[in-house]
């Protein structure tokens, strides 16, 4: 069993597991941090941005970095299935499934598919509505890249940076998705069974169990033990794993999500009271539901009842609507609401009372209905594209306004760089509900996997906080670290396989008890293998051989493999054996003691029997009937295996 690691990003993993002749890709996250190297894509022409010196504004292409061009490590067309754990970890899907010869199936839960589709649609929409006059690719050439300024010069593997996919590619990729439900057992080629488990991180997010009858691999990705909107994490099903692959821990191990949420609310209220606007760059699904729920409870007490909340995204409406229809994927509290029947999320009420409004973009209705001061939720959190760029331009110059970062994926300083100098206040409240090191060590203690595999980042404290030994995984035995492009041999030996004995054969077996509670039976059977399932059938009786005159011919043929004689075990007791011989008319026996046992001389028959602890030797000339009798008598005392 091998693990190919295609991504070095611990929260946007992409691993390939080879297990029992199946090739399974675990997630395909898209690392988009490379967009920070580019200039923002403004919705309206910005003279300021186009005059910025030094930056490669002449280019203006926004590229997304693909996880890794994996071709050197692995042929992508050999991948049988892709298992998706949550909608953030599937953004590279079109790069894997399109134009690579991929013919397999992608498995994901329904919310993961629907929301993943929305997020992809959003990115494509952001890119396509600002068509670029020109684009350049020559700079990706290593020679030219060396001459480029700043961080670009040092960027690794720029040749793997790719242009954003099209909607057509998204649709084609997503048409390969097969929906699964939690705890559904999916058979892959009859060899392996995979099953998604609730991971508690986002709507429909899952961890995966990959198992055969005797081996079990758990894949833990983006999981949360906090009580937010999704169904709680299923921990007990991870027990008894041979290998547990651990990815997607919190990116903010020192930031407490609850504290951050409080800070978010208080900063928001402060700005609004002072007459400023609040900008929240965020993804269109996920934490935003919790932010809105939190605000729903907070609005009255902070007397923000009249402040408008705007959610601007091409998929804002769909995201809000979809969140309400996934009752079975929600936490218990929200499920109970649906039974009443009431919408599970309170943003339905915010919309009904006109406190929250959503628009596909800043154009159209929004421009006429827009009132300040207000709170705007919009993407993209990298501040490089999407409607957020416009608000940065609009509000950046006033110190009354505040931008509050809640998504942990991008460094907020890098994100803000092209907008400097900035008068706007800036608050960093990253909310990452994924497992922290404390929670994960407790979890591992609970589920007790034999081996843990994790990104190497988790095996040492973060570079900036090298003294914090609590910010790393300490396990016994130590976890197996992986880095980008490494191939791990998982410590795993398969010893057994499942076969099915058909009833006819099962009924014909003759068990004999060897020890108390332990019986054995010798089995001769025909193995039938179909779809990786093996069944054992009775050996068909050979057709009776017609008495042949050409006996010699028979000898020329290779030996027919008959049922071999069983192995023997035990010992032949002297006294009892002698008594048995007597019963069969063999009376003249001379017993001679030797170092290892006895030699019996059957004088009348001129035959020797050597009896020892672990062996019996019958020396008998040319007397076949006698030999057969003696053999059967000896066998009476022995166990057959």
């Amino acid at each position, binding site marked *: 069993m091998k693990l190919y690691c295609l991504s070095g990003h611990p929260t946007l993993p992409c691993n390939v597991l080879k297990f029992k002749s199946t090739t399974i890709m675990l997630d395909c996250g898209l690392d988009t941090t490379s967009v920070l190297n580019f200039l923002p894509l403004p919705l309206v022409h910005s003279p300021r941005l186009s005059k910025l010196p030094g930056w490669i504004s002449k280019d203006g292409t926004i590229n997304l970095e693909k996880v890794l061009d994996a071709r050197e490590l692995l042929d992508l067309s050999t991948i049988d299935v892709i298992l998706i754990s949550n909608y953030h970890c599937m953004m590279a899907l079109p790069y894997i499934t399109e134009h690579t010869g991929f013919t397999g199936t992608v498995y994901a839960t*329904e919310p993961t598919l629907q929301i993943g589709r929305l997020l992809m649609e959003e990115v494509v929409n952001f890119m396509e509505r600002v068509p670029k006059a020109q684009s350049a690719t020559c700079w990706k050439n290593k020679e030219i890249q060396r001459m480029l300024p700043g961080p670009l010069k040092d960027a690794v593997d720029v040749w793997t940076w790719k242009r954003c996919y099209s909607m057509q590619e998204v649709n084609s990729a997503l048409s390969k998705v097969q*929906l699964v*439900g*939690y*705890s*559904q*057992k999916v058979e892959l080629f009859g060899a392996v069974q995979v*099953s998604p488990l609730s991971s508690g991180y986002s709507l429909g997010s899952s961890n995966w169990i990959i198992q055969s009858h005797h081996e079990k691999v758990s894949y833990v990705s983006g999981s949360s033990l906090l009580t937010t909107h999704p169904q709680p994490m299923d921990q007990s099903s991870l027990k008894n794993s041979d290998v547990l692959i651990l990815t997607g821990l919190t990116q903010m191990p020192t930031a407490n999500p609850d504290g951050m949420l409080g800070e978010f609310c208080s900063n928001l209220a402060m700005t609004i009271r002072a007459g400023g606007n609040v900008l929240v760059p965020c993804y269109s699904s996920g934490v935003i539901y919790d932010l809105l729920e939190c605000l729903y409870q907070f609005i009255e007490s902070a007397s923000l009842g009249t402040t408008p909340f705007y959610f601007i995204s091409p998929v804002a409406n769909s995201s809000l*609507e*979809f969140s309400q*229809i*996934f009752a*079975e994927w929600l936490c218990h509290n929200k499920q109970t609401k*649906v*039974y009443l029947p009431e*919408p599970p999320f309170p943003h339905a009420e915010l919309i009904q009372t006109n406190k929250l409004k959503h628009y596909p973009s800043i154009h159209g209705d929004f421009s006429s209905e827009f009132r300040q001061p207000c709170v705007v939720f919009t993407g993209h959190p990298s501040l490089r594209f999407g409607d957020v760029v416009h608000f940065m331009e609009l509000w950046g110059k006033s110190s009354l306004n505040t931008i509050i970062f809640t998504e942990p994926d991008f460094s907020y300083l890098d994100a803000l760089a092209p907008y400097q100098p900035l008068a706007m206040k800036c608050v960093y409240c990253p909310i990452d509900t994924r497992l922290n090191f404390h929670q994960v060590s407790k979890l591992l203690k609970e589920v007790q996997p034999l081996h843990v595999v994790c990104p190497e980042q988790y095996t040492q404290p973060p570079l900036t906080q090298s003294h914090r030994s609590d910010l790393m995984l300490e396990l016994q035995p130590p976890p197996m670290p992986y880095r980008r492009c490494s191939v791990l041999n998982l410590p795993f030996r398969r*010893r*057994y396989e*499942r*076969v*099915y*004995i*058909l*009833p006819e054969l*099962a*009924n014909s077996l003759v068990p004999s008890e*060897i020890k108390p509670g332990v*019986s*054995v*039976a*010798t*089995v*001769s059977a025909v*193995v039938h*293998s179909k779809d990786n399932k093996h069944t054992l059938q009775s*050996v*068909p009786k050979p057709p009776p051989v017609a008495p042949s005159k050409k006996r010699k011919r028979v*000898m*020329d*043929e290779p*030996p027919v*493999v*008959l049922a071999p*004689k*069983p*192995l*023997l*075990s*035990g010992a032949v007791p002297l006294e009892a054996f002698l008594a048995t011989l007597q019963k069969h008319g063999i009376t003249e026996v001379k017993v001679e003691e030797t170092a290892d046992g006895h030699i019996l001389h059957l004088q009348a028959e001129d035959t020797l029997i050597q009896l020892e*602890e672990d062996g*019996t*030797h019958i*020396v*008998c*000339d*040319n007397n076949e009937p006698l*030999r057969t009798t003696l053999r059967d008598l000896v*066998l009476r005392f*022995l166990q057959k*295996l």
Partner: protein
Amino acid sequence: IGKITGCVFPLQGAGQDVGRSCILVSIGGKNIMLDCGMHMGYNDDRRFPDFSYITQNGRLTDFLDCVIISHFHLDHCGALPYMSEMVGYDGPIYMTHPTKAICPILLEDFRKITVDKKGETNFFTSQMIKDCMKKVVPLNLHQTVQVDDELEIKAYYAGHVLGAAMVHIKVGSESVVYTVSVNKYAKSHISAWIDKCRPDILISESTYATTIRDSKRCRERDFLKKVHETIERGGKVLIPVFALGRAQELCILLETFWERMNLKAPIYFSTGLTEKANHYYKLFITWTNQKIRKTFVQRNMFEFKHIKAFDRSYADNPGPMVVFATPGMLHAGQSLQIFKKWAGNEKNMVIMPGYCVQGTIGHKILNGQRKLEMEGRATLDVKLQVEYMSFSAHADAKGIMQLIRMAEPRNMLLVHGEAVKMEFLKGKIEQEFSIDCYMPANGETATVTTNPSVPVDISLNLLKREMALGGPLPDPKKPRTMHGTLIMKENSLKLVSSEQALKELGLNEHQLRFTCRVQLQDPHSDPDTLHRIYTHLKSVLKGYTIQHLPDGTVMVESIVIKVSSSAEDTNAKVLLLSWSYQGGEYFFTALCIVKRLMYQ
């Protein structure tokens, strides 16, 4: 290792009768109750299944491993609070999320009608419904739920009503599939069908066993035409429905028709449940069909423009109107009240969109009865037109046949239908699929013998060795035979090679050897004699492994041949043939050949 039987035991009501479902299945030592319905045609004790059939004196909780409810219709879940709270059952009850949401509302509704309006006692209370629902574990589609270590269940979409499910119940390698009513026409959905799971028994309802219904579209057109004609001539249309299910689909149908034809006649929907019901449909939209799901963000199919809430006083309004009223079989409540008011006018029409249980007014008028005896000896003349449209999504013959083709069951069991019709379907199934088809009567047990194969863990070494022997591709003419030892210890069954079995059990091997001496005359030296034997054997026995070893022995397969001569007479040779118990098969062959050589 032995035969295990699967028993199916329909409790009163589920056998050859339509009215209520409650089936008991015993499989692999587990007892599962499928549905727990009540009979709408009775007002006395016969309304509920007779649970004393199950256990005479023990507690139900001890006997039953779980209860599974297929959908929210009262003839499938109506007796649940009675069973769990009044008879007493504390084990798990499984149903899908929508069923869990809607079931308590219908139960409460029914309770109100029976207890508050009719003043019946000995019925379950509101609190009992709540307590009963606390025992419910919600099911997701396709989720494999492990009830205990051995029993697992999996739900499939059935498309009957919102949240209806087929269930696959599995114990070891034995399994049963239970389905209420597969709506073949509802396949416009995620995955309306079942895997090819080859269950031992497929249990299906057969309410419409003989009808092979015409296409849904035809029926819809027919329905709209009839409604339209009645409205045109100024008549009133009554459509008795159950609050949830087909009603919503018919509402969508009329709504779009009204829109298109620009009709003005009012459409009403009785009962306060409407709005709530529509809300359920909206929140559980993932459980409805694909068309509705796809457009739900843009347009909510369950917000109606033309359909308004009904008030009791509207029934006396003049002019045409369409009213959806509950319940669906005209046995009580608002639909019955309206029916009484409108029955006298031949301009009016009642459309029965579903099946009616024997004993209900719906059943009587469908059978052409024109004079009805009402309470207090009054008779009611039925002059209005009575139409029947089988919109109810119970399984029909075609649906059942298709399901059998999909799931490939080994046995078929029909319940919830009328004996004659079931007999017809039974014949058809046995003829087409040549599988056994059972149709037990109420309280009768159908025993189906299953013959499960035995799962065993085989040592990978042994399996691979055998696979290698057989070559890379299976050859039908030469079966791969494997030999091994099955170790049975406690609950584990392991199949390993004999050598490994010895090792694992900590036993020493006992060697049994045989030696045979043959005296012969030969002038050659010992090595030469041996070599002659070797070359001769080699030339005669083709295809055998024959080796001449450096220590002065010849081996034919595992038979060792040695030559020695006596010190006095070098021509008198002794040939020693020695073999083990396991390797003695070719001894005779070898001996004959050697002897023949020497005496030539």
